[in-house]
């Protein structure tokens, strides 16, 4: 057994807990998880059955944690997990799984399969079997501060641009601000309008906010690779910043996994709870709407539909807010079939879009999303995740569909009248 395989196996053994043991013991091979997984439904290949993606881990569980399994191992009747096998499983665990979580909500015996995939990735990462694409992203995040190599000067350039465009100053490193706004590399690079939108919205709502020069990146490639150590380094940067600046709430940007990493996993990675709240920007906008702080003008009149990012909706529990916000600025908002909790993944989450070899598979899987669009025939699609936006645009381009994709935060900001510099709350 090579050193890295040994490490991987050790990590896998450590992550197996009572839930995972219970799940493996309950699986009755009904195959319903496959019917919920877009990688199976669009390809018809049963190897993409979610529970099958965990086969090496299941064997390991049996061999290490069950009396019978250990007996079998003793008398040489069990098949050990090998390097070659983990290599073979890379495609199943990364390329064909976006951590969308649909499998977990349909399993009749209650198995939380996505939870298990997340843990399996820990082992894959330790044994060196994570895909190159995500490994690079994770390393860059640690060394440079962003998975895509975005450095502070770049952020500052965007800030200057927004200040020039809107006449609104972008606060940085302001102690005592109510909100610490996090960005994602994807937004900084591809959708710089997001920062302007935040500035406009915060200005109208009269809320104090700030960016942080030492922690502007929310994307957590460590989460996607499945490496808790890396994930922890990234999260702790943000936590330190939030605590140093004494903010009340940290806002996670329009990026699915950033939210999962900070809000849902952050405290566990750090081993302690936070002194601040973590909210997705859509949750915050939902709160502002409820409190009457968003005063929008006018409506979009074309036919719009909303794509629920998996990590935000099904995995994060933010489902109603986006609909409330859509109805605030759209006259013709229609839901696609399976909208909301059971919505289908764009096919690019969980690090999948960073894996070049997986592109063909992703395009196949995109047929599911396409079928939802075909059913509802919108003029435009709205969503709240920078990665979903690009993955969907690429998919639409591939299938020659002329369908623009826009971000919800920007859409809301578009309906806020030109900024008048208001004094922040409390000053």
């Amino acid at each position, binding site marked *: 057994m090579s050193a890295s395989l040994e490490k991987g196996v050790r990590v896998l053994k450590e992550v197996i807990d009572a839930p995972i043991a219970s799940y493996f013991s309950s699986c009755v091979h009904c195959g319903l998880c496959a019917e919920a997984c877009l990688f199976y439904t669009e390809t018809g290949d049963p190897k993409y059955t979610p529970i099958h993606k965990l086969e090496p881990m299941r064997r390991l569980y049996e061999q290490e944690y069950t009396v019978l399994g250990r007996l079998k191992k003793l008398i040489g009747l069990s098949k050990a997990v090998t390097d070659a096998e983990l290599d073979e499983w890379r495609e199943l665990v990364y390329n064909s799984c976006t951590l969308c979580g649909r499998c977990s909500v349909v399993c009749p015996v209650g198995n939380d399969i996505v939870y298990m995939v997340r843990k399996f990735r820990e082992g894959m990462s330790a044994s060196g079997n994570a895909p190159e694409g995500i490994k690079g992203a994770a390393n860059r995040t640690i060394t440079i501060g962003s998975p895509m*190599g975005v450095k502070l000067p770049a952020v500052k350039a965007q800030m200057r641009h927004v200040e020039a465009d809107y006449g609104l100053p972008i606060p940085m490193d302001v102690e005592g601000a109510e909100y610490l706004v996090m960005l994602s590399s994807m937004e900084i690079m*591809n959708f710089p309008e997001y920062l302007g939108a935040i500035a406009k919205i915060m200005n109208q709502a009269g809320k104090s906010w700030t960016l942080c020069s030492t922690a502007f990146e929310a994307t957590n*490639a460590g989460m996607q690779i499945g490496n808790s150590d890396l994930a922890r380094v990234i999260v702790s940067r943000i936590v330190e910043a939030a605590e140093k600046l004494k903010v009340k709430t940290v806002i996670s940007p329009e990026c699915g996994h950033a939210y999962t990493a900070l809000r849902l996993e952050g405290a566990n990675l750090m081993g302690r709870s936070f002194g601040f709240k973590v909210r997705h920007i859509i949750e915050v906008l939902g709160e502002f709407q409820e409190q009457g702080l968003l005063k929008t003008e006018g409506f979009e009149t074309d036919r719009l539909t909303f794509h629920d990012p998996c990590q935000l909706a099904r995995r994060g529990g933010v489902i109603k807010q986006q609909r409330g916000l859509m109805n605030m600025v759209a006259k013709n908002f229609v839901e696609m079939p399976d909208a909301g909790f059971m919505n289908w993944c764009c096919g690019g989450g969980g690090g999948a879009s960073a894996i070049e070899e997986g592109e063909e598979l992703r395009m196949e899987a995109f047929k599911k999303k396409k079928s939802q669009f075909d059913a509802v025939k919108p003029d435009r699609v709205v969503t709240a995740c920078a990665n979903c936006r690009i993955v969907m645009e*690429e998919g639409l381009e591939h299938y020659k569909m002329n369908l623009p994709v826009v971000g919800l935060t920007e859409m809301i900001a578009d309906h806020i009248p030109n900024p008048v510099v208001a004094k922040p709350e409390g000053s």
Partner: protein
Amino acid sequence: MATTNDKEFRVKLETLSVSQQRQVAALFVQRVLGLSNDVRIKAALDMAMRADISDAELAVVSQAANTARVESYAQCGRDSDWNTQAGLFVAKAAVSCVRPDVEGQNLAWDAAMQVRVARTCEAASGDVTDHKEAEAQYAILDDFLSK
């Protein structure tokens, strides 16, 4: 009267006809053409410069420009550089120039904004500290209007 701020700039652009908007927008984008080496973008600009473009020609070049735009997104997690990223916004600006369905839209304004972001990307790559793209655009517009 010379344009000195964005409010005036935007209003003046709005008074132009669609064909005029396309032409002036193409002038804006030409300034940053060097940041992209995609031939589809150049083709889109050449088309937009012409006053006599047909709907069919517009559709073809618009489709190509859009493909160029989608292809130039920075992929999540992949290493990227700002000079290349500028190309995305050049593409977005070019798409604005040749957008077929422009009822009620100020396509020249959209193009101008995207060009400025492209400049910001160039600035972010560390080569340029600040840019005066807005002023340059005012000058182009005034020059266009005086002809």
